């Protein structure tokens, strides 16, 4: 018995494994490099595919308003503006709601309801974006047109500064509707990260605040939020990254219009929606290249936003271990 066991651990077994180890190491490291290659490949191929547009229009590609297929003039200001405005509306809605949900799930809700509510909120992220788009087009946009937008017209449309934002025909399809749908879509992303970082606040800090007689709101506003500030900003950036690149939901409710208008009620365009709507119809090299150049811009912007999000969240990680 003992002899066999000794032979088992002997040198031959070790060398037999060496070749396998080297191969296994090569394959797994190769796969890791492949992940890097995917991102780099996407960046290079967008830049390469868009070079014709960048060469032809230069900086005018970003500042030009005119998107004219017939005259082959492509300026991306309208889709860029639409992307930024809809994402901004989405954040205005999603940030306070997500923080409210995170607070509710960490401090307020009865313990047994927290799991089910958290899962339900996360299901919002699981619903395919095309479903959001269909619901937005057939249900939510008509609802906006019938109930919300006329009210905005009447009550905010004639105000001094914000008036132009809320005037215009209440047709339901437009930047406001798209922004709201986007906001609903990114709530689960921000809320789940916010909940995790709220849960990671050391209990001693909260207990100290309780001992000083703080109310729950004061704990949140003076202990939890300051303590988790960078991670919350990271979570918001994560949501922003999602909103900027979201395609299908926005394509349905934004209206694919290439006009710049101040009103949030007017149809507009976004980078992702323009590509989704027009790419298969793009019949000239310049047209196709312009759309790919748009994708390149989107890629660069989301890369920056997501990198910022990662860095913000990493600061939190370093200060008290992994949180997400």
């Amino acid at each position, binding site marked *: 018995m003992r002899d066999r066991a000794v032979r088992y651990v002997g040198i031959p077994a070790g060398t037999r494994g060496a070749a396998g180890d080297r191969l296994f190491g090569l394959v797994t490291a190769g*796969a890791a490099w492949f992940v*890097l290659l995917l991102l780099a490949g996407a960046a290079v*191929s967008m830049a390469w595919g868009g070079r014709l547009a960048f060469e032809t229009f230069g900086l005018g590609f970003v500042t030009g308003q005119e998107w004219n297929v017939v005259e082959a003039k492509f300026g991306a200001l309208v889709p860029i503006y639409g992307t930024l405005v809809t994402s901004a509306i989405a954040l205005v809605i999603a940030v306070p709601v997500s923080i409210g949900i995170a607070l509710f799930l960490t401090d307020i809700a009865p313990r047994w309801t927290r799991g089910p509510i958290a899962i339900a909120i996360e299901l919002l992220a699981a619903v395919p974006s095309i479903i959001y788009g269909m619901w937005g087009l057939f249900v939510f946009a008509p609802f906006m047109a019938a109930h919300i937008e006329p009210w905005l017209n009447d009550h905010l449309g004639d105000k001094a500064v914000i008036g132009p934002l809320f005037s215009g025909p209440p047709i339901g399809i437009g930047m406001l509707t798209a922004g709201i749908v986007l906001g609903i879509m990114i709530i689960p992303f921000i809320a789940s990260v916010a909940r995790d970082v709220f849960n990671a606040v050391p209990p001693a800090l909260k207990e100290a605040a309780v001992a000083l007689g703080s109310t729950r709101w004061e704990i949140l506003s003076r202990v939890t939020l300051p303590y988790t500030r960078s991670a919350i900003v990271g979570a918001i950036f994560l949501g922003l990254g999602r909103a900027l690149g979201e395609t299908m939901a926005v394509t349905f409710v934004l209206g694919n219009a290439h006009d710049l208008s101040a009103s949030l009620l007017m149809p507009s365009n976004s980078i992702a929606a323009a590509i989704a709507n027009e790419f298969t119809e793009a019949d000239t090299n310049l047209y196709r290249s312009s759309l790919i150049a748009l994708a390149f811009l989107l890629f660069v912007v989301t890369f920056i936003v997501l990198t910022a999000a990662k860095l913000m969240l990493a600061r939190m990680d370093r200060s008290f271990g992994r949180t997400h």
Partner: protein
Amino acid sequence: MLRRRLVDAIALLFAGAATLFGLFWLAWILWTTLSEGAAALKPSLFTEMTPPPGAEGGLLNAFYGSAMMVLLAIAIGTPIGIAAGTYLAEQGRYSKLAAIVRFVNDILLSAPSIVIGLFIYELVVRTTGHFSGFAGALALAMILIPIVVRTSDESLRLVPDQMREAAFALGLPRWRVTARILYKAALSGILTGILLGLARISGETAPLLFTALNNQFWSADLNAPLANVPVVIFQYAMSPYDEWHALAWAGAFVLTFFVLALNLLVRFVARKGLKT
């Protein structure tokens, strides 16, 4: 004191209202899909092909095309994802490369899917000269890979080091420790990742628009444009025909409940697995 209590009560009320607000949209969207979809649900949905405008039909070819592409994407993406995850957790856990790959992987995880579609278009459709189900599967695989990388990395790292040490002490080479013991220990986590990835790519539309395109007829050829549920829903919903709208709702119904059921199942199973 009264003022502080009031502010507190308002804040708590707001938090509760925010949660209700989130749940309200989920309920509204699911109710719409359920009621519109159930009304349009017919047996012919699973036996007939996508119809021309104004005619009755089903989505059989789209279901088939989607299933083929998703399965192929899993066949391509899972081994690559698990291998990369193994590198991150086992081979190079604290190496510089692993840190960079984790970072890049997280970016890929949230990268706009339409950009991934365009990338595969440039890479595959342009070089082969035609749209194909194969290109669609590649685009879906590219969305799946980061999900699998992350979950296999995390679940392998959760395996206690004692298990590795015990296996090494038996004289097993490193690769057999990983292949025979660690994968088994991390199986439920890795499977969870694959199934969540499956749920995610089943509903992806944007990456298929310029890769698989669509096909109105029955086709099992992966080297040609392939019908698929999300793009059919997109085209039919955007059309002016009532029959097409009904089919789009029926497809949306099947898609949504497949994806949600898979999500709930995975969460349920994952939770059970952790307890035992």
